[in-house]
């Protein structure tokens, strides 16, 4: 009788845990009640939970042995260390997914957490349903980091011949290998697809241009590139297909490879008639979504790249405009003109500042109350809101829209221009060799900003920042997307 309907879990020791069981979670909360509940939740999900009430202690544990945790869950408000600080250290330095939680569902706090790189933000009470799926953040992270995924796979893999097979696959690049092993772990058995991360692509472009300068573009064959890149992840096939796509994209966008050759003076005389000198250096940054570093990189770029931009009024269809995926809050005032549809939270129009708090009895919905006084808490996060609206530049789930051409763009003509004349001195002065070929203005901006930008060459010749746009990389492995960015924007040196 007692056995019936018994739902007791099988002994975990007796069988090999299947993912996500055994996920190693570090939970940090100074609130013992919450911590106890979270620990119970994690155990219920059969994760391996390590809990601590002190953020500093958690940090120490992580510094000592970061490999023994997969993900961190942390409270926001803690006496010894702010959760955001912890998030910054753990999320950025250690590159570990962090989930934040807090009792307050205050929009600004949530936004701050997400903007600081939290993978998720849970409001207390944390429920089983929330905790059950936290493993997705570990996977999500590793999907974008093939090396890491490989590591985790190998670590979790207990069949030696299996991992050997994987290594073979890794080197030979065979797509399909029969996986007779446990079907529950099929996701692990798949060969991790090579993802051309930003860094990898930078490297690729570097090598490509290096070879192009030394031996000519035609000599940049996959084998040579592979040798020079010297990356264990890569195979010749990877490079070959990437190269092909890269060349195609370059061609499509009208960036002439020959520009990288410096002996293009002979064309100058002919072409300079058709070329209008942009009054201002137009710079386009390639944004890396990291905090704080962006502006420095960007500044360096601008300083070094005060090179006039040439364009051909005859050809008007070559600007690629891409939508921002994760717009960076920019310091540039120009950009504050953007009317990005802030999807959420800008409507704290409640004029009632003096709260009749006695109205709050147990049945008032929580959100209502928060909305009512959220205007008061603006000052709590000084670095957070940049404008009158709560979040002028943020949209979270904006899908990467394809590039589109905008008519009436009087910029660089691609088809006629084989060689873009570069004033010799300016070429020399640029420390960024790659910039020489970047005449195509390709920036990521919201659609709304484009008109604004395009006026500049003619109507606002004095404007310094006409071309400065927040430009964000979307962590997408869509190759052409990356290439499109780099065809005009050489990889920044970080």
């Amino acid at each position: 009788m007692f056995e019936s309907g018994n739902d007791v879990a099988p002994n975990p020791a007796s069988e090999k845990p299947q993912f996500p069981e055994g996920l190693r979670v570090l939970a940090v909360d100074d609130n013992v009640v919450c911590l106890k509940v979270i620990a119970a939740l994690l155990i219920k999900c059969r994760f391996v939970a390590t809990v601590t009430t002190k953020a500093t202690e958690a940090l120490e544990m992580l510094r000592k042995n970061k490999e023994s945790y997969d993900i961190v869950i942390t409270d926001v408000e803690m006496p010894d260390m702010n959760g955001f600080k912890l998030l910054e250290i753990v999320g950025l330095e250690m590159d570990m997914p962090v989930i934040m939680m807090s009792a307050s569902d205050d929009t600004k706090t949530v936004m701050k957490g997400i903007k600081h790189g939290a993978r998720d933000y849970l409001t207390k009470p944390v429920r089983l349903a929330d905790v059950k799926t936290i493993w997705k953040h570990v996977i999500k992270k590793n999907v974008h980091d093939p090396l890491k995924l490989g590591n985790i796979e190998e670590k979790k893999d207990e069949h030696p011949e299996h991992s050997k097979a994987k290594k073979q696959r890794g080197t030979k690049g065979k797509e399909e290998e029969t996986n007779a092993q446990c079907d529950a772990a099929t996701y692990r058995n798949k060969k991790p697809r090579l993802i051309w991360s930003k860094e990898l692509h930078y490297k690729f472009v570097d090598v490509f241009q290096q070879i192009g300068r030394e031996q000519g573009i035609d000599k940049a064959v996959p084998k040579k590139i592979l040798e020079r890149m010297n990356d264990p992840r890569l195979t010749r096939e990877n490079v070959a297909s990437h190269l092909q796509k890269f060349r195609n994209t370059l061609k499509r966008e009208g960036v002439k490879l020959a520009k990288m050759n410096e002996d293009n003076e002979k064309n100058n005389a002919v072409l300079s008639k058709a070329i209008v000198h942009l009054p201002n250096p137009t710079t386009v940054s390639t944004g890396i979504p990291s905090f704080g570093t962006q502006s420095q990189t960007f500044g360096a770029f601008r300083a070094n790249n005060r090179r006039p931009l040439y364009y051909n009024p005859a050809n008007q269809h070559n600007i690629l405009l891409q939508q921002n995926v994760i717009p960076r809050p920019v310091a540039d005032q120009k950009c504050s003109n953007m009317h990005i549809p802030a999807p959420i939270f800008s409507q704290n129009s409640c004029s009632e500042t003096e709260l009749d708090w006695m109205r709050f009895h147990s049945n008032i919905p929580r959100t209502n109350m928060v909305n009512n006084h959220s205007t008061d808490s603006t000052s709590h996060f000084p670095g957070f809101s940049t404008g009158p609206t709560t979040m002028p530049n943020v949209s979270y789930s904006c899908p990467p829209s394809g590039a589109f051409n905008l008519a009436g763009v009087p910029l660089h003509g691609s088809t006629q221009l084989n060689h873009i004349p570069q004033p010799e001195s300016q070429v020399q002065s640029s420390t960024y060799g790659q910039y020489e070929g970047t005449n195509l203005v390709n920036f990521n901006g919201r659609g709304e900003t484009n008109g604004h930008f395009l006026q500049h060459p003619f109507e606002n010749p004095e404007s310094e920042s006409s071309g400065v746009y927040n430009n964000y990389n979307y962590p997408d492995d869509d190759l052409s997307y990356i290439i499109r960015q780099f065809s005009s924007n050489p990889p920044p040196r970080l």
Partner: protein
Amino acid sequence: MLLGLGANQLLADMNRLLSLLFHQGVLDEQFLELQQLQDDSSPNFVYDVVNIYFNESEKLLSNLRGLLVDKEFSDYKKMGKHLNQLMGSSSSIGAKRISNICLAFRAASDQNNRPACLRALEMLENEYCYLNNKLHEFFQIEQQRVLAGGVRYPIQQQQQQPPQQQ
């Protein structure tokens, strides 16, 4: 047989008490979630958590009172932190009414509205006492039920009957 009946009676009492608390808005479904987490590996989980909760919130409440009683009081920020703590733990055990009052309290504290804060604190203390009494009653009945029937939880029947039963 008789023991079983007694246990059933006690279980009904528990459920009645719970539904009263739910109806009053004192507790919410998070408390049920807490009960779900209790199993063989942690048979007293709910009781333990609630106990810690009462200890912690008692401290927090006396801290809050200490802050507000002080005539020169101005540290609303510190008060906000205490309130956040209280709110976090209250919501974690499903003490809905307390967390709602905490919200109102925090609103008052954000506006540096001291009289409102004092009223909120009084309400909190009342709620705290009420919840404390009711949950103690609840756990007492549960304890009796364990002694009487050996079935600790309606959801999770136990694999082995506890020794008390014999």
